[in-house]
């Protein structure tokens, strides 16, 4: 099967992107090197092609009620042009996907979902459809760019008459003209930095991409998926399939803030209420390697020779220049400062449980 390409494929080739198969999409893993790109976003600004993300549009008189029933967060608190991070759960509390809900009005929403889960999400949503809602997979109608970093606002402002300061964190403006193209701009992202996500028509994607790189000059660079992962990980932002999945609930992953157990009924609520009352058996924890080595996803975690869980994500941290990780372990073993072992290639290497040692997000409130 041939790989899918985004409208920015030729732009990546032109910029020297190293293209890989990313869940069926031919996308750049890096351009100049992950560490360099990572630090560019932390210090200045970076431009990402995230066109592979899925978009599902929900319209109709019962749209709000319908979405509320699918989501763990309280959708009814959203105002027009506001965005919410939420989970869509199974009956057992495991996660179908984590996603963003964009509200145009209470009869019109856009769900932005993970590329790898898009078809599954779409089927799940359709399966629960009620009267008075229209569900449409509009993924192929948009290209999506993300500009992230402390200089993101300054650079993007050069290309638009819209005062970007009017777009607050987790809000969007559906009518922003950038470099002559009609776009939707939201103040969101996945790096721990301030920045924007820009939805354009496919045919305008290259124009907007080139204009942003031109406007930013040496203060911006195209960034690949490799740095996207190290950036989100350092900021402790969860990744589906690692920190959360069908077998890990949001409560176990420490993301209970996005689960409103006092709101109306939603799929998975009963299971999550029970889990909250009993206190989840597992907890997502931070650790730092003491011995030299890098913990990777799925490596086992031990305490005094007993298996207590596994690593969800581990990496060299370009910002802190050390080896850090997240692990899902049995709750009773979580005491910050305590030593654990990570099993790396059959060797027990020492690590230390920590708290608050990840990147402090630099997003605007």
């Amino acid at each position: 099967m041939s790989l899918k390409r985004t409208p920015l494929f030729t732009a990546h080739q032109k910029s020297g992107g190293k293209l890989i198969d990313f869940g069926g999409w031919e996308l750049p893993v890096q351009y100049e090197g992950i560490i360099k790109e990572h630090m560019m976003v932390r210090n200045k600004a970076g431009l990402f092609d995230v066109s592979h993300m899925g978009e599902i549009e929900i319209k109709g008189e019962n749209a709000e009620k319908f979405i509320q029933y699918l989501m763990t967060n309280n959708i009814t608190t959203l105002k027009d042009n506001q965005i919410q991070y939420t989970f869509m759960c199974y009956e057992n509390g495991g996660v179908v996907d984590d996603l963003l809900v964009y509200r145009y009005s209470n009869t019109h929403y856009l769900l932005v979902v993970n590329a790898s889960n898009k078809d599954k999400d779409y089927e799940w949503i359709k399966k629960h459809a009620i009267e008075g809602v229209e569900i449409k997979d509009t993924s192929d109608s948009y290209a999506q760019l993300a500009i992230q970093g402390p200089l993101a606002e300054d650079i993007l402002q050069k290309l638009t008459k819209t005062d970007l300061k009017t777009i607050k964190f987790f809000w969007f403006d559906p009518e922003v003209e950038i470099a002559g193209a009609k776009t939707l701009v939201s103040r969101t992202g996945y790096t721990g930095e301030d920045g924007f996500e820009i939805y354009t028509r496919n045919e305008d994607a290259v124009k907007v991409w080139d204009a942003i790189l031109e406007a930013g000059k040496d203060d911006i660079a195209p960034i690949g998926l490799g740095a996207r992962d190290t950036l989100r990980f350092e900021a402790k932002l969860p990744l589906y399939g690692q920190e959360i999945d069908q077998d890990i609930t949001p409560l176990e992953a420490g993301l209970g803030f996005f689960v409103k157990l006092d709101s109306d009924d939603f799929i998975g609520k009963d299971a999550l209420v029970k889990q909250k009352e009993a206190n989840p058996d597992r907890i997502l924890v931070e650790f730092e390697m003491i011995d030299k080595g890098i913990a990777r996803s799925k490596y086992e975690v031990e305490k005094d020779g007993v298996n207590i869980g596994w690593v969800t994500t581990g990496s060299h941290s370009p910002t802190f220049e050390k080896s850090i990780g997240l692990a899902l372990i049995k709750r009773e073993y979580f005491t910050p400062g305590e030593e654990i072992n990570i099993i790396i290639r059959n060797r027990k290497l020492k690590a230390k449980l920590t708290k608050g040692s990840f990147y402090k997000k630099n997003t605007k409130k």
Partner: protein
Amino acid sequence: MNIPKDLYYSEEHEWVRVEEEKVYIGITDYAQSQLGDIVFVELPMVDEEVEVGGEVGVIESVKAVSDMYSPVSGKIVEVNEELETSPELLNEDCYQNFILVVQMDNPDDINELMSAEKYEKYCSELED
């Protein structure tokens, strides 16, 4: 891509420099560019005996874990400990920075390796 003429090359992208019975072993320019930013090198133990194809270390970049295999058999007589604190040296100059030195048991092992010309062709075929 940089492929020095005076070295031998393995299919696993190790280079070998022969100095009498001893061989210096490292990774090639192709390998380091494929791996990307190298952030950790796990070295073998000095005095360990290795076979052709035996594991002699692990190289980790930000994204990937990659095993390293010995292209010759013999005894490990030296490892480049500088890589433990500065693994990025392999990105900076992969031919100046060897990883280990093996005292060969069987000098014929070298004949199984590729010349620079052959290796260049091998890499270009991988690119297709």
